[in-house]
């Protein structure tokens, strides 16, 4: 099926050269690369901000940078990492590349809209970079009013315009995925034969479409209040600062699920492949994604237990927050059970996936502490919260992203990377991550507030540990950037299916050609048919379609 004919085989990467062939492409696989490069750029910038912060926090006094600078660093770190790295990471790179391949489609439903999404993303990113170059913004990524709308002397308007614009990229991508998954599945690809990666992207797309407009309009209101001195959120002008928090978290809590659901999808694919087992309780895992997407919209005010909101509202939101923990727990149990009586290999993607389960479990369990009212009063706005969400977003989402990149790298590039280096990097990331963020749980319970440029001396030992861990973590992120780049030219040729994985994307060439499949695939088996029973039912790839 993958026999090289005379001359190099035509595939999506050599289908065209030159800047125009990339900047005007409508091929979802090429657009995935555009996103991959852009978000890697933002990741490096956001990481640089974090590095400076961690070095500042080595000593209790604020001695490396001034308070004003420090406040800009943590704000820009949050804005860059959340809106320009984590939210687009898996959906816009791996989702873009894989959604059509996994369901047996030629492309996304709206290829030109897909390219437009990337341009919108870049435009928003440009605004945010200009804001950073013009002095940055110091409100925290949460933009709490009335500080952001009246008191801050930084580039609030430019930054919120950037985030507003980027939001449309999310909305359009979500729309594209939803339509594609509904309308373009290959014959035989029923809903319950979809890979769980697709289910999680379906759930993510729902949040993209329903949540993003709310943050967009909220940030516009902040900008308007700032420019025209309206009284929307500023109590001195008759506004309500808590209204801002409600609107902000109505999006920004579900946004956490935008970041984690796709990573859960990756983990399901990787675990199934490297345990050679169908995911235990497939339909429970699939519905858990939808349950998280729906319940995720009903828990936003758990960010506001000490904000002065009504005690009864806090109680209702606390209870609902516990509900949303259940589907996450179900997923973890099912992944673990998938390993039972499997045939488990420890290639790099699997190390990332197992690391994900460990870190996500800790992140999820510490979420219960924050949902518990009596404890949240103490740990709210402390380093406990910082540690918790980094366990979810870095330990969860970034581990998932790296695992996914390693898993599908052979498909994307046609080449494999040096496995030893990859395993080493996965290990370094895991150790570095825990050393960075576990001490922060203790710091938080001790009472160290977040967003502190200087801190009392009794917190120093734990902060030094955290900074030491951060340097290990940085090394762990640097190594893959080097060997993955190296592999583009020098990596071994991967072949169609180097992992012996199941799924339509592994049935076509590595790299796929522009139309993805030689012939319309027809699906005759369940997802993850790793056991021999259903083997050989996939339609062999037939005569090539017109490219």
């Amino acid at each position, binding site marked *: 099926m993958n026999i090289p004919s005379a001359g190099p085989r035509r595939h999506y990467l050599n289908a065209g050269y030159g800047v125009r062939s990339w900047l005007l492409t409508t091929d979802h696989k090429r657009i995935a690369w555009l996103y991959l490069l852009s978000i890697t750029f933002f990741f490096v910038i956001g990481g640089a901000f974090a590095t400076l912060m961690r070095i500042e926090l080595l000593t209790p006094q604020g001695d490396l940078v001034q308070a004003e600078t420090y406040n800009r660093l943590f704000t820009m770190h949050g804005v860059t990492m959340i809106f320009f790295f984590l939210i687009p990471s898996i959906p816009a790179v791996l989702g873009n590349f894989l959604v059509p391949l996994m369901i047996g489609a030629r492309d996304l439903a709206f290829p030109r809209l897909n390219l437009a999404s990337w341009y919108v993303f870049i435009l928003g990113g440009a605004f945010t970079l200009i804001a950073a170059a013009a002095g940055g913004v110091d409100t925290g990524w949460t933009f709490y009013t009335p500080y952001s709308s009246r008191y801050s002397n930084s580039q609030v308007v430019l930054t919120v315009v950037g985030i507003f614009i980027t939001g449309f990229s999310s909305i359009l991508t979500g729309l594209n995925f939803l339509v594609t998954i509904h309308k373009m599945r290959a014959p035989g690809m029923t809903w319950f034969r979809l890979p769980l990666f697709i289910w999680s992207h379906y759930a993510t797309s729902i949040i993209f479409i329903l949540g993003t407009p709310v943050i967009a309009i909220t940030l516009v209101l902040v900008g308007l209040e700032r420019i025209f001195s309206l009284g929307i959120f500023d109590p001195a002008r008759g506004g309500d*600062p808590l209204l801002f928090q409600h609107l902000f978290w109505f999006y920004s809590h579900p946004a956490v699920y935008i970041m984690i659901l796709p990573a859960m999808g990756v983990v399901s694919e990787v675990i199934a492949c490297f345990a050679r087992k169908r995911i235990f309780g497939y339909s429970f895992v699939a519905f858990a994604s939808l349950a998280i997407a729906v319940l995720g919209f009903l828990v936003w005010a758990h960010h506001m237990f000490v904000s002065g909101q009504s005690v009864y509202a806090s109680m209702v939101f606390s209870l609902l927050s516990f509900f949303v923990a259940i589907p996450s727990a179900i997923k973890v149990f099912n992944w*673990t059970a998938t*390993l039972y009586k499997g045939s488990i290999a*420890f290639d790099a993607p699997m190390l990332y996936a197992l690391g994900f389960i460990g870190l996500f479990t800790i992140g999820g369990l510490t979420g219960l502490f924050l949902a518990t*009212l009596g*404890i949240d009063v103490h740990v709210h706005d402390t380093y406990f919260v910082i540690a918790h969400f980094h366990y979810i977003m870095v330990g969860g989402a970034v581990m998932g992203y790296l695992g996914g990149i390693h898993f599908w790298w052979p498909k994307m590039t046609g080449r494999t990377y040096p496995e030893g280096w990859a395993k080493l990097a996965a290990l370094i990331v895991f150790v570095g991550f825990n050393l960075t963020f576990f001490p922060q749980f203790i710091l938080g319970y001790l009472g160290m*507030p977040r967003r502190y440029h200087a801190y009392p001396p009794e917190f120093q030992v734990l902060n030094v540990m955290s900074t030491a861990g951060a340097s290990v973590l940085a090394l762990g992120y640097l190594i893959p950037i080097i060997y993955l780049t190296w592999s583009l030219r020098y990596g071994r040729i991967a072949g169609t299916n180097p992992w012996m994985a199941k799924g339509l994307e592994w049935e076509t060439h590595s790299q796929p050609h522009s139309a993805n499949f030689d012939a319309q695939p027809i699906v005759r088996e369940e997802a993850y048919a790793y056991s021999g029973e259903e083997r050989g039912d996939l339609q062999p790839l037939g005569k090539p379609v017109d490219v």
Partner: protein
Amino acid sequence: MWENLPLFPQQASTLAPRVDALYFFLILVSVFFAGLIFVLIFYFAVKYRRRSDADQPRAIEGSIPLEIVWTVVPFALTLVMFGWGAWLFAEIHTPPRDALEINVVGKQWMWKIQHPNGQQEINELHVPVGQAVKLLMTSEDVIHDFFVPAFRVKSDVLPGRYTQIWFHATKPGEYRFFCSQYCGTQHSGMIGRVIVMEIPDFQNWLSGGAAGVSTAQLGEKLFESLGCVSCHRPGGAVQAPSLAGLVGKPVKLEGGKTITADESYIRESILDPRAKIVAGYQPVMPSYKGSISEDGIMQIIAYLKTFNPQEGEARRP
């Protein structure tokens, strides 16, 4: 080494050990479940490691009973966490009636504190041990947050409304308090000390101040100098609602709604009198926005709290 590496904060309030008990319960549950998952993953990873590239394990579809177990058991446990946490939370929000009331005003970047006897301090809060203390708090600019880790309490401090916390300190000593809601450039400098003293020492400290005039008396002076007294007095020139025993009582508004006259309501009525009109009265009161400070409003509220509900007359504290 251990004095440099504390793992738990001091317990210095009646609430602290109770919050810690719940914290330990959650740690116990977390360690159990995380341990269960980690042990299972390691065990499966070793026992079922791939021995040959041709391994082809049999498919296992899933198990409904298992799914039910690992849905219901965590669910039940989270309900326990919820109930326990909500019970503590309700207490955190129910100050005892006899609590000593202290006013706190946050501004970029300092804390102003005023005791009932008029004693004022900045970034320090002296309180007696063994007695409930309630802080009535507001902000002059952005949102701040008053956080005392050793007492396990915090609350945001908002402009335009009052929030409160209360605590019952159990050990004399000095404890840090922090602003824990990001409030601008010097956020990390907006910190201070709570100084918990034995009651006699506290009394000494209070009388050592040069105050002489209590907060309520300051409020009474404002009440007169701003002219509130000319209307809000039986037989005044303009008919206005009586303020006798108002604080904490229900008030019937124009339109039939009834609200409780809490501190935030009184503050709003001073700054924006037309926001809530008392049933049966004309909206003739002017706004005092700009002519009274947050501290001043708190002093007037302290004064109003001294009214004797029976006689409708001011009583000197």
